[in-house]
């Protein structure tokens, strides 16, 4: 099988030349000045390829490190190994269908991936959602935020060699997804948010599981905190590592816990309130240091805030329908709408354009993982090779969201 042109879109090329694809130096001539500069090695320097299959890169991220001894001089993250063409697929699906495409983007927090497009479509339609549905959205999302942050704690320890916390994490995560499966019908890709409301009302199994969980909420998170927070190895490896200054974070466009760890109290739930968050009482957790340890601590605190929100939501849940009365085939008037929410990783936004048909004309997804991952390039040079894993884990990127 002859290979005519090395097009990255042709699977045969990749199959025929697998070695060239994962070697550190690309098989083609440099395409930009930056590439030419990066792949030209100085004296005593070498390239170290990490990924795309690596247990500590959170999926299929590939990082090419330029190292001098044990120190990182420069790095080149290579993305696109999980590019599934969601935005293009959504253009050829109707509005309900495109929610199912966005579902597996950030697969640890699927409900947030559904909520943002659903809110954008509702703004296109100028639709009001029943209050009970809003409360159900907040309830399920905050449950999933706890699950996501607890997984983060486990994976961060795992990437640095601590094998125990991930077991605690998965005990809690399995409990949460089983609970949400009782509510939504699916264990991981829930497909729960619908345009105009949610898919199902509270049921007995969900409430009994939730009540059971609330009686010991956060216990697993505390168990992990006990293992990690004052663990000498963990603290020594994370404190002061990969610090981002406040201005640098704002310039990079970081959002979410990574930004709040730098001392900027920006939370979309407070800054641009949506759903019923204005009625709920919670704190925006911040830290000042901006280092890896601070990013970890901010997430630990956010778990407690989420549990606080869940408690309030359960007490104030109104009665009523969970779906607005809308036709099955929806055709929003031509226009544009933007909706942003606070996902566990930051500001997750959706920009939808309608041309009056039942399919989105353009559907843009702004994913926080992608933006946060940029921070690797300015903060990693100067660190040790092993710190790549710690810093990458603390930024908590999910490659499904990065590559879309």
């Amino acid at each position, binding site marked *: 099988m002859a290979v005519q042109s090395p097009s990255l879109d042709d699977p045969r090329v990749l*199959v025929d030349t*697998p070695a060239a694809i994962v070697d550190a130096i690309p098989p083609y001539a440099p395409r930009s000045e930056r590439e030419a500069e990066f792949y030209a090695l100085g004296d005593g320097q070498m390239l170290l390829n990490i990924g795309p299959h690596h247990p500590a890169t959170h999926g*299929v991220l590939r990082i090419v490190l330029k190292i001098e001894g044990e120190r990182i001089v420069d790095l080149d993250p290579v993305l696109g190994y999980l590019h599934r063409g969601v935005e293009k697929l959504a253009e050829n699906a109707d509005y309900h269908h495109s929610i199912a495409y966005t579902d597996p983007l950030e*697969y640890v927090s699927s409900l947030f991936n559904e909520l943002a497009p659903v809110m954008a479509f509702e703004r296109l339609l100028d639709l009001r959602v029943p209050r009970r549905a809003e409360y159900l959205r907040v309830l399920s999302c905050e449950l999933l935020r706890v699950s996501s942050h607890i997984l983060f704690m486990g994976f961060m320890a795992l990437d640095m060699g601590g094998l125990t916390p991930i077991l605690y994490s998965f005990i809690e995560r*399995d409990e949460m997804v089983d609970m949400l499966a009782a509510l939504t019908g699916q*264990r*991981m*890709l829930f497909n729960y948010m619908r345009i105009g409301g949610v898919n199902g009302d509270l049921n007995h199994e969900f409430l009994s599981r939730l009540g059971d969980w609330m009686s010991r909420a956060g216990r697993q998170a505390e168990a992990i905190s006990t293992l990690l927070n004052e663990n000498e190895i963990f603290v020594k490896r994370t404190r002061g590592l990969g610090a981002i200054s406040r201005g640098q974070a704002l310039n990079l466009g970081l959002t979410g816990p990574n930004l709040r760890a730098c001392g900027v109290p920006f939370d979309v739930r407070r800054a641009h309130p949506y759903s019923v968050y204005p009625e709920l009482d919670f704190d925006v957790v911040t830290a000042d240091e901006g280092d890896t340890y601070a990013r970890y601590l901010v997430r630990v605190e956010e778990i407690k805030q989420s549990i606080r929100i869940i408690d309030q939501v359960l007490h104030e849940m109104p009665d009523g329908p969970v779906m607005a009365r809308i036709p099955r085939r929806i055709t929003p008037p031509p226009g544009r709408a933007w909706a942003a929410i606070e996902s566990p990783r930051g500001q997750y936004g959706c920009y939808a354009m309608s041309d009056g048909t039942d399919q989105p004309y353009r559907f843009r997804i702004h994913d926080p993982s992608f933006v946060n991952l940029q921070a690797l390039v300015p903060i990693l040079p100067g660190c040790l090779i092993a710190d790549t894993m710690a810093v990458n884990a603390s930024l908590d990127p999910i490659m499904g969201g990065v590559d879309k």
Partner: protein
Amino acid sequence: MAVTPGDHAGEAPPASQMAPAGGAASAPGAVVPAATGAAPAATDSLPELAPGSALAEAIFVANELWSSSNTAAHGGGHAPSITHLAEFEEIGERGDDARWSSLQVVPAKADIVLDLLRVNSLWPLLSGLSCCAFEMMSSATSRNDIDRFNMFPFRASPRQADVLIVAGTLTTKMAGPLLRLWEEMPEPKWCVAMGDCTVSGGRFKRSYSVVQGIDRIMPVDVYVPGCPPRPEGLIYGMLKLQRLILERRGRWSARAVGPTVPAGR
């Protein structure tokens, strides 16, 4: 110890089909039973081993423990020409009774003992591509605990793994690295396609960048559908894989690696 691929079936795959990177465990040049076709040679005993072969010798154990009530039924008590179970199934005899009664020996080839060892210590490769990886990890942690079924250490290196669980959407950009992982695994090896995306493309089947089922580029032994499958589903699939290994139905030696489209797609 080198266990040759395809030897049990009486045929040797062409050397070009051997995974080039798996040279640590397979020695294609050293063991070639020199069979010309797919049909097993009709000798009066087990297929002959090449001199100097690293394949373990067959162990003959007389079947004195049990015999069929009707000795004329299956082969009439004559020594069968084929003694391996997989080949015996091919000639149409099905069912445990028929299988065992016409054999004069219990086919306790060392291969079968090795198969039992392999089945009871399957080491999967820790390779998550996307969503399904979390259910795969969930199956390995406390609640589901795939360790109970003798599949414990998720190895991070393909050199130490037996099973490749492809968990998550395979895109065209990842196809090359994944194939390289598969070729780096030493033989014998097996592949499990976990999730709709790897089985057929799933909900991303119509995307321009997604491989529509990993069986287009590599052999697959067990398909576990679901989006994503529950951990129980994966465990069920892995139990099926154990049985498949015992029955010697693995496909890693029979099919070439490369961009193939199976018939009927």
